């Protein structure tokens, strides 16, 4: 191994890889400190900045919480996610020759994902009617293209004397689709969090915040996620919504363990915004969701186990009686640089009224069922060679079985393999290949994807 790599040279390799679409490895900050699932997502999860020089070497010095010398209560963080992707075929999962309607009921439109948001290469159905079971699209079809996936700006305000934190995450999403410029400014999170008791790990958040369901939402942001794309079940569990949530954790030090409860009442539950709009309740009744978690934190093994549930009216239609029920189980284990994540999700949605999503209005909200999950294995190898901090290799297997009322159940799966490089503390390069397969019910279609992502954080 060459030890004389310069950071300049590495950047050059990274840029070249991104430009050529080569399958260049990337490493993940999975070993980077991640706070408890329930609280962590409410804190901007940017990579830890380089250790600052102490203001005062004298032992025991504590910066004043207010006044001169106090750390600024306002911090501005964020990241830029630049991608390069190429999908097979026309970038969709729609099979040539298939004329059944709705076009999005008999295939998995979320399969050809190209970035951490779950945006796909294309959702162009060539005029065939679709009924709103769609992800967002970057509109590149089957063309190789550079993408500015996300420009993320996080503002955090923490007044020193109060147990209060105010956080906002605003994202600029430059897009150009078949219908022209489709750029959006998206307020992904905006909430206040109160920790009322100094002696208790209890936090109350009100506003628009992350999901409480499962574990994949912890990896929503490109600068956190091990790989590039979310799993095939992320659409049901990783969406943000508006409401109130409560997190409580009890440490059991004698067992090196903790038990946590994270519950929320929100407009839409945890479906992604393209499926259920989070910014208004369409039924007038909140959706309840929660996760009961167990953590084991020993020197050699860290493990997190959880069971999640969601119940309430589906927020893509107006009828309060049209319920959705979701439950799931998750596990995350870290041993000797190996990270195992697994999750199972079970979704039942009753038939409702006219459908409204962030993508528009549609005539029917059909009854829908889905069962699926994923297993992800990653190995992170720490380095300290020039700019290189970590190399991570990862693989994930997803499987999803789903069906709309009256339509053929479809079963799809996906193998994802990728590499990630962490450079310095503020640059991540990752690349992966998605092998999407239609196992039953859905026509076989060329919808595999190569995608990569260069993430700058500040």
């Amino acid at each position, binding site marked *: 191994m060459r030890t004389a790599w310069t950071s300049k040279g590495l950047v050059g390799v990274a840029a070249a890889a991104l430009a050529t679409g080569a399958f260049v490895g990337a490493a993940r900050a999975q070993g980077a400190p991640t706070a408890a699932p329930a609280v962590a997502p409410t804190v901007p999860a940017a990579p830890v900045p380089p250790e600052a020089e102490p203001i005062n070497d004298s032992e025991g010095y504590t910066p004043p919480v207010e006044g001169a010398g106090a750390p600024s209560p306002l911090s501005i963080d964020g990241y830029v996610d630049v991608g390069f992707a190429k999908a097979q075929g026309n970038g969709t999962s729609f*099979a040539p*020759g*298939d*004329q*059944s*309607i*709705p076009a999005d*009921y*008999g295939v998995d439109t979320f399969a050809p994902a190209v970035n951490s948001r779950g945006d796909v290469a294309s959702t162009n159905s060539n*005029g*065939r*009617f679709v*009924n709103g079971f769609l992800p967002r699209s970057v509109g590149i079809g089957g063309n190789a293209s550079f993408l500015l996936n996300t420009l993320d700006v996080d503002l955090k305000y923490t007044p020193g004397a*109060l*147990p*209060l934190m105010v956080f906002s995450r605003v994202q600029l999403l430059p897009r150009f689709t078949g219908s022209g410029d489709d750029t959006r400014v998206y307020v992904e999170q905006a909430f206040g969090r*109160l*920790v*009322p*008791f*100094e*002696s*208790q790990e209890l936090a*109350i958040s*009100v506003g628009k915040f992350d999901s409480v369901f499962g574990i994949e939402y912890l990896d929503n942001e490109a600068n956190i996620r091990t790989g590039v794309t979310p799993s095939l079940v992320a659409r049901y569990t990783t969406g943000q919504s508006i409401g*109130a949530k409560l997190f409580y954790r009890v440490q059991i030090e004698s067992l090196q363990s903790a038990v946590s409860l994270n519950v929320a009442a929100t407009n839409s539950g945890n479906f992604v915004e393209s499926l259920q709009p989070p910014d208004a*309740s369409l*039924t*007038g*009744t909140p959706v309840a969701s929660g996760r009961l978690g167990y953590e084991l934190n020993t020197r050699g093994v860290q493990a997190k186990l959880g069971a999640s549930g969601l119940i309430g009216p589906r927020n893509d239609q*107006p*009828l*309060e009686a049209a319920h959705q029920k979701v439950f799931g189980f998750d596990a995350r284990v870290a041993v000797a640089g190996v990270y195992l994540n697994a999750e199972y999700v079970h979704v039942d949605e009753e*038939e*409702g*009224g*006219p459908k409204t999503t962030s993508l528009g209005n549609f*005539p*029917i909200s*059909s009854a829908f069922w889905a069962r699926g999950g994923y297993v992800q294995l990653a190995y992170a190898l720490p380095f300290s060679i020039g700019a290189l901090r970590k190399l991570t290799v990862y693989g994930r297997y997803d499987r999803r079985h789903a069906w*709309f*009322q*009256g*339509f*053929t159940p479809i079963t799809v799966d996906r193998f994802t393999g990728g590499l990630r490089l962490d450079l310095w503390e503020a640059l991540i390069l990752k690349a992966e290949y998605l092998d999407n397969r239609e196992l*039953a*019910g*859905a*026509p*076989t279609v060329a919808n595999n994807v190569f995608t990569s992502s260069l993430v700058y954080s500040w």
Partner: protein
Amino acid sequence: MGAYPGPVRLLRRVGASAVLLALGACAQPPAPPAAQLWTLFDVEAIYAGGATDDHALAADAGLPGGIPIGHVLDGTTLFQRPALIEATGGSYLTTEVWVNYDQVWMQPMYVPVTGWVDGVPQKLLDANGAWHPVFSVGPGSGFYSPFWQAVYFTVPPGTTTATYTSATQILDSGLPLVPREGWTISIVPADVTPPAALAGGSPKPGTGWLDGAMVSTLKFGERLFTWDPATNVVDETPLFLMVTRDADGNLVQPYLPTVGGLGPVGAHVAAAPRVGTEPIYASYWRLYTVEIPTTARVVADAALQQELDAAGLHDLGFPVDPNVAYDTPSIVGRVLANPTTCTRMDPSDAAFDCTYLDSQAAIEANVDPGAIAATAVTATCPFVTWNETALLPPIVNE
């Protein structure tokens, strides 16, 4: 109390806000009406749940009284409803009812063929000479419709009618697909039958495949609907139902022949297409109400007058000469627009001087447009008789 009295106050405020949010929920606007589809499976299920034949479908969709399930299925036999079209008597069956659907879509139906002769697909037949289409959507879906586009695919030698049984299998086969004409074929419960009087005519019972399972069908034939080729949305044709006001001023729907149209309201389509002398009428209809003008009357024989009396609509009836009613049965129930000047009621009479609302043209010419209203109800109602004769399903090369 914890360490932060201030935050506790804030907590209370949060709680108060939650209460306000909950109160705000009470101010939600009413939910828009939900779209609903009833197939014959649903109607059978309604009967099985203990409902009687006057149980109404689409009761709150602009059609007074809705559609009684007895006017769809009489037990397991399809109900044959009298109608008028092009000023002639006929009848139709009802197999599906939609409410609050702005549009319904034609779906693909895959048909295996052994080849093509002069551009005509040679359907793969079983030992009984029957062909079995493969349907892409089942009647359990809100997107099901009996309006199918035949998509032909040529199968290799040795293929049987049980080889291809699902749409996915056909799409995965990679065989070239040739989309062609539209068919009206309802997927129905196996025990549902047309009225015995229609034996040999339309519809033809058959079977097809859906997701690997055999399903029962009723074939009403080709060319009974048109569609927008860009969207596959099936074109609607108006079906007019006569309504009037009762003593309390409420609209009611007396049981009278409906009137089938030939094209969109105001389009003034002159005549329906024909195969030989047999007309081809639409099978997908938007139901419209027509408020009977206050000066009009309904031609009533003794039985109909009795029904009108029972409904409190005694004055609506206009007596008919029993001999005329015997010669032209479809005259009973027609709405007579000029009862004060009508003297010769038989349309075949050379001195005929009556104006009946027995066609779309007659309705549009004699009724105030404000008295014609579209409902939120659409239905599959293929005509099965016309001019006292059973219609054959318009099927080419079968």
